[in-house]
């Protein structure tokens, strides 16, 4: 207790040291705890990007919600997209708490999204032109998300770790929902299988990109390394990508699909998958708002934001009374 009572008297270096000791000991940092600015900034960057990606991620699948080809699929995909919005809500609340001491709110997050300052995940900049994509996204994109999010379940930041726990539990259902769509198509007619193969061809590169470049030198950005130092995450991009391959490549092959990379194979000597790397310049282009659907999706978000402006005003006026 004594150290806590005198905590305010410590120098910043001492506070930092104490903070790093807590992290090293596996303690969880909570919203009101002292934390270095750098840690706070890293969390805000990571969690607001994650939160807004959930929300932007609802848009490609949302395209298929009214069109889902049976009552059962309509219900399932609605529930799935609703979960994604729910994840966004949960994460934005975690981000809002971190931003509060800086005088920032959700409004800032939305404005940063519209101005292009806040990026969202590369996969959600891509087109989803067929029902096969509705299956592929839920199966493999959510599958990839499970792998990268599970790694952070033990994140040093308590509120994020707890939000992820709930999110990951739901993601498992999403991947099952996706797998069910994919299997129905894989076991269906030649046209249905073609729809599926076509969709895999379209999504493969995006899935490679999903985990980010192998090292900082491809993007000149060391956020991933910093996040490892702060124990916000525990694995490198490449480790996660290899995990994804190990889990999904055999399944993709098992249902008779071809991966659009002739070089892909498992190297027994290194115990690693060998594959054709993505073009990381293209990746940078996509996430900076120049992907095939980036502008349309942002425009959709923006137009819904604008058309509902009067509703937000009306609610704010009620609160003020």
């Amino acid at each position, binding site marked *: 207790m004594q150290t806590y009572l005198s905590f305010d008297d410590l120098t910043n270096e001492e506070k930092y040291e104490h903070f790093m000791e807590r992290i090293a000991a596996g303690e969880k940092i909570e919203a009101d705890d002292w934390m270095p600015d750098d840690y706070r900034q890293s969390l805000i960057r990571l969690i607001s990007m994650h939160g807004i990606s959930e*929300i932007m991620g609802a848009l490609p699948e949302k395209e298929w*919600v009214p069109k889902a080809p049976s009552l059962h699929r309509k219900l399932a995909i609605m529930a799935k997209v609703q979960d994604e919005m729910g994840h966004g*809500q949960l994460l934005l609340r975690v981000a809002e708490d971190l931003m509060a001491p800086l005088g920032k709110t959700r409004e800032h997050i939305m404005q940063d999204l519209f101005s292009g300052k806040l990026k969202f995940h590369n996969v959600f900049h891509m087109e989803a032109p067929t*029902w096969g994509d509705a299956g592929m996204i839920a199966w493999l994109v959510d599958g990839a998300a499970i792998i990268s999010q599970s790694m952070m379940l033990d994140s040093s930041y308590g509120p994020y770790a707890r939000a992820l726990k709930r999110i990951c539990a739901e993601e498992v259902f999403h991947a099952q929902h996706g797998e069910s769509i994919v299997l129905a198509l894989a076991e269906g007619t030649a046209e249905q299988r073609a729809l599926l193969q076509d969709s895999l061809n379209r999504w493969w590169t995006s899935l490679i990109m999903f985990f980010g470049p192998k090292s900082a030198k491809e993007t000149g950005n060391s956020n991933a390394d910093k996040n490892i130092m702060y124990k916000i995450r525990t694995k490198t991009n490449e480790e996660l990508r290899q995990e994804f391959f190990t889990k999904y490549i055999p399944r993709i092959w098992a249902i008779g699909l071809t991966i659009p990379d002739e070089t892909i194979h498992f190297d027994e000597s290194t115990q690693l998958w060998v594959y054709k790397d993505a073009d990381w310049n293209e990746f940078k282009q996509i996430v900076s708002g120049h992907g095939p659907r980036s502008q*349309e999706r942002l425009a*959709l978000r923006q137009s819904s934001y604008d058309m509902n402006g009067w509703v937000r005003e009306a609610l704010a006026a009620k609160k003020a009374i």
Partner: protein
Amino acid sequence: MKALKELIYQLADDDFILAYRGSEWLGLAPHIEEDVAFSSINQDMMGHATMYFQLLEALGEQEADQNAHLRAPEAFRNAVLLEEVNGTGSYLHQPNYDWAFTVVRNYFYSVHKKIRLDSLRLSSYEPLRNVAKKILMEQQYHLMHWEVWFRQLLTSTDEAKRRMTEAMVKVWASFGGVLTLGPYYGEMVKANFIDDENVLKTRWMSAIKKVLNETNTNMLPGEPGMTSGNGRKGEHTTDLQQAIATLAEVYVTNPAVSW
């Protein structure tokens, strides 16, 4: 038998088409929390429609998915108000949706749906009675949800009041289509499948009058109308054609296979 099926088609199609319109809002609601809540309501409603489609299947009608996706617009029995588009644009491209219209339509419909279910709970047709009881549990929450929105927007800024008033005039003009039980109404009532439509209508009118009173809003003039046709007779607008084309787009590419 014909009257019973007609009644269940009305119940199924009302929920199915309004849930479809609701699903177009997904990702576009006024705030993220509402997106989550509204989507949950739409799933419930689509689930209610599914239960009714299953009742119809048990009565010898087509299999539920076929019934939902393959019928011609004339075969739909939903009220025309419920098929009306959410606004201009499409859910994919430049939607200019009207939240006031959505709130009023859903609130007025929810009030009626509750009254209708309370009557169906005592229906002479047991399977309908059972389904009504199940649906009522969820319906309670939907009604509360829309009532909160309705009251909040009606008692807030001038702009919100203006938009809500305009939406009420629009909804009133065709709410008569929800209130009617259609051409087989006499048989439905005689067989005790449901109460007289005039009884249900009186209950609905007094519920609406009460909430308008409490929000210092003038009661709407005259009787609710049926300006764009009687959906219970299979009269519909191009809005329904567009809805069916969208909701069946994938299914019709091959109705024989599983998806």
